[in-house]
């Protein structure tokens, strides 16, 4: 071990055990700051059981900064007490009565093993291991820290004691950095190095959560009466804090590390070839309606590729379970929560092919790709303003005649009034909605005089089935009223969903 007396210039090697020789100009700054602290206050706090970094934090006038990170607690202690190197304490210092070990880089893990780190980089290495367990891929992160409320109370108690003894001192008047912020200052740079990532307010958050080891041992929370007494005492300027007020048992906290990534989005267009597949998962009384859902067939393939926790499906409009989605497909978004990795475009293309080549051919996708914050604007485009195109097979009670084909095709921008269809009236408002049928085209079907293929282009939100059969006369005009006979719809397909750019 190097001879650690007064700092000498020139010698600037960092030592492997985390201690830095005095030659390093950062530690030199810290040494000088340590020597300049009010020695009486320092001595008092150390003997009360406040840790070295908390002493620095509470007594120093200079800003608490990351230079402190590389100085071990024992070295810092020796600098605070006297310039000389005493036995660099091999004895374990007790748990700080203010920060409960947080700034001493001491904590218990999930298995209740007590872990100590000498300096910031050692602590960062431990945290890195825990982060890596979650398996996220990232190149930048945001750091959040949360500590138990009793730490604030402990700090208040110590400050009260200091005010009692050193009331008018200038160093006492400056605002003190909190334990939470002090920890961030100490470990952010080492974490950046250890994780190999930048720090920013990014979509990937690492949260360090300290929690109390047990209820009693933490200088447990004040009761309401104690809080009132303390507040009136502070007002009166009296303090009953003496050295004796601090005789409680203090235990280090339990640290848990949680990582969370903001949701990522994928967009594409889907096709629905089956008349027995619903758009979203549809379960009534524990029984699934239909044999599958578009949502699960697509989301269920994307989620594993992202190693995410869960997904949400958003589509620009919807169709009934018995209606096929053909033409250019319907735009959709898949939102994945807490993904661990982002699949490449190549993987996405392969996922799309896998879905399209599947044996049952229930659903198809195209243009599956990663999409950023413009995803919601894209969805809104597909919603209310756009036109939709359909093809229906219609039956009427009398044979189709030429004049029928002409009269239907000649109707342009036909306005219809639709009362809320009976089949959705239980969950929608009873309203009368005006809608426009932009154009219609009739194709006869070979071999049948009563059936024909009806192509129509309508305003978004039009109920097509009700337009054909009239919904007990609640949609007017209807196919039946236009042709003057009963009309029924046999099947319906969506043949196009027009968006702004297609």
């Amino acid at each position, binding site marked *: 071990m190097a001879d650690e007396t007064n700092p000498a210039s020139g010698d600037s090697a960092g030592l492997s055990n985390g201690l830095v020789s005095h030659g390093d100009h950062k530690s030199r700054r810290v040494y000088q700051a340590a020597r300049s602290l009010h020695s009486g206050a320092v001595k008092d706090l150390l003997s009360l059981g406040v840790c070295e970094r908390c002493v620095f934090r509470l007594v120093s006038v200079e800003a608490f900064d990351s230079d402190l990170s590389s100085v071990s607690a024992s070295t810092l202690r020796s600098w605070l007490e006297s310039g000389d190197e005493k036995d660099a304490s091999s004895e374990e210092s007790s748990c700080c009565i203010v920060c409960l070990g947080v700034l001493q880089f001491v904590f218990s893990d999930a298995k209740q093993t007590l872990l100590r780190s000498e300096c910031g980089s050692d602590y960062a290495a431990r945290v890195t291991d825990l982060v890596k367990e979650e398996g996220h891929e990232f190149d930048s992160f945001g750091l959040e820290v949360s500590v138990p409320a009793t730490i604030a109370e402990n700090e208040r108690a110590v400050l009260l004691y200091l005010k009692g003894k050193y009331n008018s001192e200038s160093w006492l008047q400056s605002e003190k950095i909190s334990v939470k912020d002090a920890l961030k200052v100490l470990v952010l740079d080492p974490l950046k190095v250890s994780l190999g990532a930048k720090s920013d307010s990014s979509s990937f958050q690492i949260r360090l959560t300290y929690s109390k080891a047990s209820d009693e041992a933490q200088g447990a929370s004040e009761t309401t009466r104690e809080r009132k007494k303390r507040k009136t005492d502070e007002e009166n300027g009296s303090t009953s804090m003496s050295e004796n007020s601090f005789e409680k048992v203090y235990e280090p906290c339990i640290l848990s590390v949680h990582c969370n990534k903001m949701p990522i989005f994928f967009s594409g267009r889907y096709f629905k070839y089956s008349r027995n597949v619903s758009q979203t998962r549809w379960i009534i009384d524990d029984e699934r309606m239909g044999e599958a859902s578009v949502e699960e067939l697509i989301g269920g393939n994307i989620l594993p590729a992202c190693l995410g926790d869960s997904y949400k499906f958003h589509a620009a409009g919807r169709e009934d379970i018995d209606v096929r989605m053909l033409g250019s497909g319907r735009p959709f978004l898949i939102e994945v929560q807490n993904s661990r990795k982002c699949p490449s475009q190549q993987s996405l293309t392969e996922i799309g092919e896998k879905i399209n080549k599947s044996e049952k051919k229930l659903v198809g996708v195209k243009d599956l790709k990663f999409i950023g914050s413009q995803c919601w604007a894209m969805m809104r485009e597909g919603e209310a303003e756009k036109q939709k195109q359909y093809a229906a097979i219609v039956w009427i009670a009398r044979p189709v005649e030429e004049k029928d084909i002409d009269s239907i095709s000649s109707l342009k921008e036909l306005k219809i009034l639709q009362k809320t269809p009976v*089949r959705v009236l239980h969950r929608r408002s*009873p309203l009368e909605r005006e809608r426009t049928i932009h154009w219609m085209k009739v194709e006869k079907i070979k071999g049948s005089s009563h059936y024909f293929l009806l192509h129509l282009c309508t305003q978004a939100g039009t109920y097509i089935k009700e337009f054909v059969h009239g919904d007990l006369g609640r949609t007017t005009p209807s196919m039946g009223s236009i042709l003057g006979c009963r009309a029924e719809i046999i099947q319906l397909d969506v043949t196009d969903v027009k968006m702004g750019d297609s």
Partner: protein
Amino acid sequence: MEIQKTEVAKNPETDDTIETTKQNQSEEEVEHCDEQKQEEDELRSVLLSDIGDLPLTPPSATQVNFVSYFITDFTKPGHDQYIYRHANGLCVIGLAPTHIAFKDEGGITNIDFNVGKSDRSVLKVSGKRKKNAMRSESNTALCKVSTAKDSYIVRCCVKGSLLEVNERLIKQPQLLNSSADREGYIAIIMPTRPADWTKNKESLITLEEYKAKKEVSL
């Protein structure tokens, strides 16, 4: 390409296939038309791919989506009504074909919703929760239908909230004569609780039972 497509679609066709006019078109446009035609042919074959055999007369929307129930001689002989219940629980109420009113010469000439304490045709139900709907019991009066000879009270038959009455009947009472089971429906009622419907159901009969009872072939 888009604009071209709609123009083609607007031309009335006289045959199975769509004929595109090829005069005055450049080669490019002709190519486009061919492509489109191919797309449309493909689309048509997909559209017609799973229809199977088309029956001469398919079941009506009512038959497919509703379960038909009937009640006969409700509070008075000859007062036969139907209750079509949708899978979502809503019930459409109307006059069954054997209702005594249809036997009068000239059929039904008038309908009046102003019975009981209020005019049923002025209720304004709003919102998903169906606020302001009139609560009905099974024997609550719904309306009065009149013929040249007499008038008859039609009742709800279902306990629940009255969501809607068919006010078109006021101006067109002949709908009751021509299509009482479709455009001539009288009201839509939402049973408020599943238990209410289960109890109601006990006094109703099925379509088969109705046919048998009335010896009518429908």
